C-alpha cells in the first residue's frame, strides 16, 4: 500500500510537470489548430532562463527568495521566445496549408535546440541546476511516504497556474475573446476582436506555464540540458491528446493520468516488460487505447469543425 501511495505521489509530480507543458499545446491548438512542436523548446529555454537569471544575479545564493525571481526570469525569456517565434515564423504562414506551419514548427524546434547548445556557455553537456533552500534537499517523510521537496513546488505551481488560467479564460475580457476566437475566428473578428492579438496571447500563456515547468524540472532533476524539451514536449503533447486536444482541463487531466500511468508501470508491471525501461511503452499503450475507444480524448476535444 505504501508503495502504491508513493508511486501516486511520484506520478502526480511527474504529471503536474507534463500538465504545465501540455496546456501550451492545447491553448495554441484550440485557437489556431496548430500543433506547435517547438513548444518543448520553449519549456527548455524557460529552464535555461531561470539558470541564467540565477547565474547572473545570484550566483552562490541559496535562499528561497531568489526562486520567484528565477521563475520571473524564466517566464520572461520563454514568453519572449514564443512571441517572437509566432511573429516571425507562424504569422506569415497564417492561411497556408496546414503542413507548412507544422514543418516550420519542427524547424524552429531544431533551431532553438542548436542555438542553446552553441551559445549558452557550457550547454554542450548537462548543466547542474542551483540548489535552493526549502525546495531542494532531502525528502520530507509524511506517514511513511517520502515527498520530494521539489515535488511540492511542482504540484503547487500547477495548482496556482491552473487557478490563474481559469480566472483569465473565464473572467476577463481577453479570455472571453480567446474563447470566441476558438469557436469562430471569422465571426470573432467581425465582432471587433483583434484575432492576431489573441493568438499572441495564447502563445504567451502557454510559454509562461512551460517556463514554470522548466524551473520545476530543473529543481526535480537537479540538472538541465538542451535536449530536455524533446522528450518532455513529446510526453506533454501525448498528455494533451490524451485529455482531448484544445481542452484546457483535458490537458491537465491528461498530464496527471500520464504521469501516474508511468509511475504505476514502473512499480507494478512485473517481469521482463516491467520496470522503468518499459514505462514509456505502457504510457503510449494507454494513449492508443484511449484514442481507439475515445478518439476525442478523455474529456473531449473542444474544437470547432470547420469543414
Amino acid at each position: 500500500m505504501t508503495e502504491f501511495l508513493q508511486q501516486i505521489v511520484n506520478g502526480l509530480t511527474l504529471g503536474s510537470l507534463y500538465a504545465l507543458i501540455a496546456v501550451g499545446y492545447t491553448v495554441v491548438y484550440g485557437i489556431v489548430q496548430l500543433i506547435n512542436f517547438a513548444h518543448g523548446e520553449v519549456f527548455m529555454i524557460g529552464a535555461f532562463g531561470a539558470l541564467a537569471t540565477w547565474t547572473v544575479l545570484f550566483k552562490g545564493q541559496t535562499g528561497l527568495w531568489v526562486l520567484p525571481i528565477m521563475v520571473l526570469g524564466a517566464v520572461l525569456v520563454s514568453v519572449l521566445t514564443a512571441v517572437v517565434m509566432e511573429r516571425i515564423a507562424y504569422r506569415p504562414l497564417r492561411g497556408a496549408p496546414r503542413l507548412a506551419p507544422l514543418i516550420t514548427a519542427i524547424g524552429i524546434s531544431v533551431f532553438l535546440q542548436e542555438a542553446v547548445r552553441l551559445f549558452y556557455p557550457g550547454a554542450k553537456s548537462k548543466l547542474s541546476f542551483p540548489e535552493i533552500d526549502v525546495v531542494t534537499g532531502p525528502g520530507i517523510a509524511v506517514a511513511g511516504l517520502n515527498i520530494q521537496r521539489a515535488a511540492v513546488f511542482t504540484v503547487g505551481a500547477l495548482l496556482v497556474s491552473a487557478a490563474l488560467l481559469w480566472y483569465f479564460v473565464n473572467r476577463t475580457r481577453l479570455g472571453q475573446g480567446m474563447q470566441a476566437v476558438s469557436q469562430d475566428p471569422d465571426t470573432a473578428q467581425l465582432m471587433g476582436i483583434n484575432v492576431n492579438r489573441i493568438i499572441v496571447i495564447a502563445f504567451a500563456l502557454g510559454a509562461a506555464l512551460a517556463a514554470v515547468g522548466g524551473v520545476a524540472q530543473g529543481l526535480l532533476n537537479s540538472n538541465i540540458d538542451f535536449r530536455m524539451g524533446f522528450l518532455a514536449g513529446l510526453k506533454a503533447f501525448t498528455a494533451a491528446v490524451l485529455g482531448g486536444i484544445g481542452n484546457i482541463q483535458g490537458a491537465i487531466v491528461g498530464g496527471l493520468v500520464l504521469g501516474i500511468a508511468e509511475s504505476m508501470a514502473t512499480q507494478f508491471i512485473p517481469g521482463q516488460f516491467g520496470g522503468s525501461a518499459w514505462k514509456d511503452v505502457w504510457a503510449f499503450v494507454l494513449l492508443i487505447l484511449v484514442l481507439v475507444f475515445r478518439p476525442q480524448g478523455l474529456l473531449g476535444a473542444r474544437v470547432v469543425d470547420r469543414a
Partner: protein
Amino acid sequence: MAQRSVMTVGASMLVASLALAGCGTRGEDSNDTGGSTGGSAKVAKIGVIAPLSGDLSALGKGIQHSVELAVKQANDSKAIPGWTLEVEAVDDEGKADVGKNGATKLASDDQVIGVVGNLNSSVSQQTQPVFAAANITQISPANTGPSLTRGADGNSRPYKTFFRTCTTDIAQGGFAAKFLIDQGIKTVATIHDKKTYGQGLVKYFTEAYKAAGGTVVAAETINPDESNYAPVVSKVAPSKPGAVYYGGEYPQAGPLSKQMKAGGLNVPLMGGDGIFDPKFVELAGSTSNGDLATSVGEPTENSEAGKKFLADYEAAKYPEAAAAYGGYSYDAANAIIEALKTSLKDAKDPKSARQATVDAVGKVSFDGVTGKVSFDEFGDTLVKVITGYKVEGGKFVSVKSENVS
C-alpha cells in the same frame, strides 16, 4: 475531416522528429595537430576516436589532448627517423552508430596506422570490426567491458587488432564488491543503464558480491535519455539496501545520486570508472558526500611518471583537463609510437606497415605513466590495479589501491 488529417500528419511528424533527433550530427571539426610537417618527412597518422561533444566530452577531450601530447613529444624528439606523426581526431558522440561511421572514415585514410579509442565499450563493439578489417591497431584507454578482448565465452580473442591499457570490469566489479563488504554493507540494490558497460559492470559486481556473502535486494534499470528517476528510487527504497551500485556514467549517476537522497534513500551510491569525474560531484550536488567510485589504476599523480605527464599536459595549455583516462590515453599513444619505431623503419607507406604495427604492439614493454605497458595474449594490460574513491567535501578522495590480478 480537416481535423483528422492534422492529427495523422502530427503523428507522422512525431515519428519523423524522433528519427531526426537520433541522427543529428553534433560533431565539431576535428583539428589536425601534432607538429608541422617538416622537410620531406613522410607522414603517418594516429587516429583518436572518442566523444568530443556531448555529455561525455570531458573524458573524450582528455583522451584527444593526451594523445596529442604524446605525438608532439615523439615528433620533437624525432622518435621515428624520416617520419612525422599527426593526430586525426574523430568524434563518436558516445554513440555506436556515429562511432562506426567515424571508424570507417579513419580506416579509409591510407595514412592512419593506429587508433586510440573508443571511450565507451558499446561503441568499441561497433568499431572493432571496422579497424580489424583494415588491419589498424586499436588501443582503447577506457573500455573496461571484458568481452571486447575475451569474446563472449571469456576465452577467445575476437579481434587481433584490439588492445587496451586499462583493466576490465571483472577486476573493477570484484574490487567494488569487496570494498562494500569490508565497510559492513551487506545488502545493495543495483541499477544500470542497459548499455554494454553498465550492464557488464553490474553483472561482474553482482557475481563477486554474492560470492563474498552479500545480498542483492533489488535490480533495476534506467533509461539513459531520461533525467527523472523518482519512480525507480521509490521502487528500490522499500527494500532498504545499504548502498546502491550503479552501472553507467556520470551524466545519469550524478542526478540519480541527488534524486536518491531527495527521494528518501539516504545510502551511498557506488559506481565504476564511468562516474569517476568531477562532473559527477557537480551534478550530484551537496548530498553526494559519502558516494563511492572505483577507477582503473592508481591516481595518476601518485607516481613520478604520472606527475611528469600532468606537468607536461599543464604546460601544453590544452583547454580541457586530462580527466580520468588521460594517463591511459598517453600510454596507448606511446605504445603505438613504440611499435612504429620498428614497423615504420623500412616501410614505404603507412598502409603497408599496418600489419607489422599490430604485431609490434603485441610485443611492446615499457614503463608508462600508469605502470608497465605491455599486453597479454588477449590484448589486455598486465597491470590490474584498481583504486577506490569516496566523495568528501565536494571531491573524490582516494581511499585505497589494490592489485587484483
